[in-house]
C-alpha cells in the first residue's frame, strides 16, 4: 500500500505547546575536562517526535542523560513542563538499548515496577489493569505472567516500552532503543513505536545512529557534530503520517537521508 507523499498542510505536531525547553546547554566532564556539549538549544512540543543523529561520541547520550535528570548540566536551562529538571522525575520516561527487565519479576511486575518504586505496593497493584492494557497495546497480553527469560529480544523491548509508558510521562527519552535488535524486528518495532506514540499522543526524543530510522519516525532531526558536541543543523521531515516502511523507497525519503549523510560525511572527511 503506497501512501500519498504529501499530506494536507504542515505536520500537526509542530503546533503543540512547548513541553521540554533547553537553552544555552553545555556539559564539560570534570574528570577529563572533555567538552561533551556546547550551546545546545532545543524545544520539544507536545506530540512531537524529534530525533538526534550523529557520529558516536558526539554527545547524544550525554544530552539524553541531562534531559533525564541523570547528570547535571555545566551551564544552561533545562526545563520540563515549566519545572527545572533537577533529578530523575516521574514525568520523564526513559528507554535504553538494553531492555533491562528484572529476571525475578514477571513481565507485568516489571511493567508496574516504576509505580511500585515511586508510590509503593498498593499503587503498583492498582496499576496492574493499566499495565495489562499497555501490554495489550504492544501485543504482549499473553505474556503478562511470564518471566523475562522466556521473552525474545523484541518482546523484552516491547515490555520495556510499557514500563516506560506506565507512569504516563510527559516526554519519552529513547537512547538507541532498538539497535540491539535484528533489522526486521527493528523495522517492526519502529512502526510499533510510531503507533504507540500516536495512540498515547506522546512527545518523544530519540537518539539513533540509523538515518533511515530517524527519518521514518521524526518530525524533526537534530544533526550533531563532535568536539565539542553541538547541533549543526535541524532537518524538518515533511513526510505525511502515518509513515510506512514503503516510504523508505521513495525519492523524497532518499533525499532526506542523503542530505543528513552529507552533513555527517563532512565531519568524517575532516
Amino acid at each position, binding site marked *: 500500500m503506497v501512501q500519498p507523499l504529501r499530506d494536507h498542510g504542515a505536520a500537526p505536531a509542530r503546533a503543540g505547546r512547548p513541553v521540554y525547553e533547553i537553552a544555552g546547554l553545555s556539559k564539560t566532564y570534570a574528570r577529563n575536562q572533555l567538552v561533551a556539549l556546547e550551546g545546545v538549544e532545543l524545544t520539544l512540543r507536545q506530540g512531537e517526535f524529534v530525533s538526534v543523529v550523529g557520529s558516536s561520541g558526539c554527545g547524544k547520550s550525554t544530552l539524553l542523560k541531562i534531559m*533525564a*535528570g*541523570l547528570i547535571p548540566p555545566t551551564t544552561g536551562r533545562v526545563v520540563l513542563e515549566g519545572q527545572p529538571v533537577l*533529578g*530523575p*522525575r*516521574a514525568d*520523564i520516561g*526513559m528507554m*535504553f538499548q*538494553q531492555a*533491562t527487565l*528484572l*529476571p*525475578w519479576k514477571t513481565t507485568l511486575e516489571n511493567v508496574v*515496577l*516504576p509505580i511500585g*518504586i*515511586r508510590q509503593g505496593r498498593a499503587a503498583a497493584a492498582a496499576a496492574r489493569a493499566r499495565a495489562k492494557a499497555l501490554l495489550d497495546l504492544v501485543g504482549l497480553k499473553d505474556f503478562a505472567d511470564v*518471566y523475562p*527469560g522466556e521473552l525474545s529480544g523484541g518482546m523484552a523491548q516491547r515490555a520495556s516500552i510499557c514500563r516506560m509508558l506506565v507512569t504516563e510521562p510527559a516526554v519519552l527519552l529513547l537512547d538507541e532503543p532498538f539497535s540491539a535488535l535484528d533489522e526486521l524486528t527493528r523495522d517492526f518495532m519502529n512502526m510499533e513505536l510510531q503507533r504507540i506514540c500516536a495512540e498515547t499522543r506522546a512527545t518523544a526524543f530519540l537518539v539513533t545512529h540509523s538515518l533511515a530510522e530517524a527519518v521514518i519516525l521524526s518530525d524533526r532531526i537534530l544533526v550533531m557534530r563532535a568536539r565539542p558536541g553541538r547541533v549543526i543543523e535541524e532537518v524538518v521531515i515533511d513526510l505525511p503520517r502515518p509513515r510506512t516502511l514503503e516510504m523508505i523507497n521513495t525519492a523524497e525519503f532518499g533525499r532526506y537521508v542523503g542530505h543528513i549523510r552529507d552533513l555527517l560525511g563532512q565531519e568524517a572527511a575532516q
Partner: protein
Amino acid sequence: MTDAVQTTVWVEREALIDRIPRWAAMLGLFLAFVLIWDLVTRAGWVSPIILPTPRETLDDLIFVGQNLLSGDYMLAALWTTTRTAAYAFLISAAIGFSLGVLVGETKFGERAVLPYLVAIDTMPKIAFAPLFIAWLGFGIESKVALAAFIATFPIVVATAAGLSASSENERMLFRTMGAGRMQTLFQLKLPNGLPYIFTGLKIATVGVMAGVITGEFLGGGKGMGALIRQSASQMNTPRVFALILYLSLLGLGLYFLVAWAQRRLVFWNRSGLTGPGAG
C-alpha cells in the same frame, strides 16, 4: 532433481571410557578403590592399626549406624555437633551478610572495614581455637565461635561481590525511576547478588564443619570430634573411619540444604553460578 539423495551420515565418535554410563563408572571406581584397599591391608603392607581392612571398617560402620539408630551416646554426640554447626552457620550467615552489605554498600565499609577484614582473613584462623576455649570454656560456645569465625569471611566477600554485580543499565534504570538507596539495595542489588551470596554460604558450610570439629578436637565436649579423638587415642582406626563417614553426611546435609534453598530462591538463575566444586 528426482535422483535419490544419499544421506550424509555423520557419527561423532566418543572415546570408550567416555561411553561408560555414569552409574557404572562411579561404581567401578568405588569397587576398584575398595579392591586395592583390601589388597594392601590383606598383604600386610601396612599395619592394621594404621589402616584397617575394608571389612573391619564396614563392621564398624554398621556398629556406629546401629548405635545412632538406637539413640545411644553416638546419636547424642552427632546431635551436639549438628547443633553446634547449625548455630555457627546461622551466626556466620548473619554477621557475614551484615558485614558484606556494609563493605559493599558504603564507602566507609570499603575504605575502613575491608582492610581489617582482609588482614584477619589472611591469618590462620584455626590458631584462634585456644583463645576461644579460654574465653568461652569447654561447652559448645567456644566451638560455635571458632566455626563461625572461620565461616564468616567467605560470606562477607561473596555478599560484597554480589552487591556490585548489577549492571550499569540496571542501576541507571533504578535511578530514572527515582529509587532510593534502600529500594535499589533490596529490589535490585540483593536479588542480583543472591547467586553470589549462596556461593559464599556453600563455602561457609565447609568452613563451619572444619571449625566445629577442630574445636571439638581441641576443646573436648560431647560432640563427634571428641568421639573421634577418643577412638583415635585407643588406636581404634576402624571406628575413626566410621565416625568420619557419618560426620561427612552432616556436612553434606548442610551443603545440600543451602543448595536447596538456592534453587527455591534463585529460581530465575538455575544454570548460573554454582558453589565450590558442585552444583
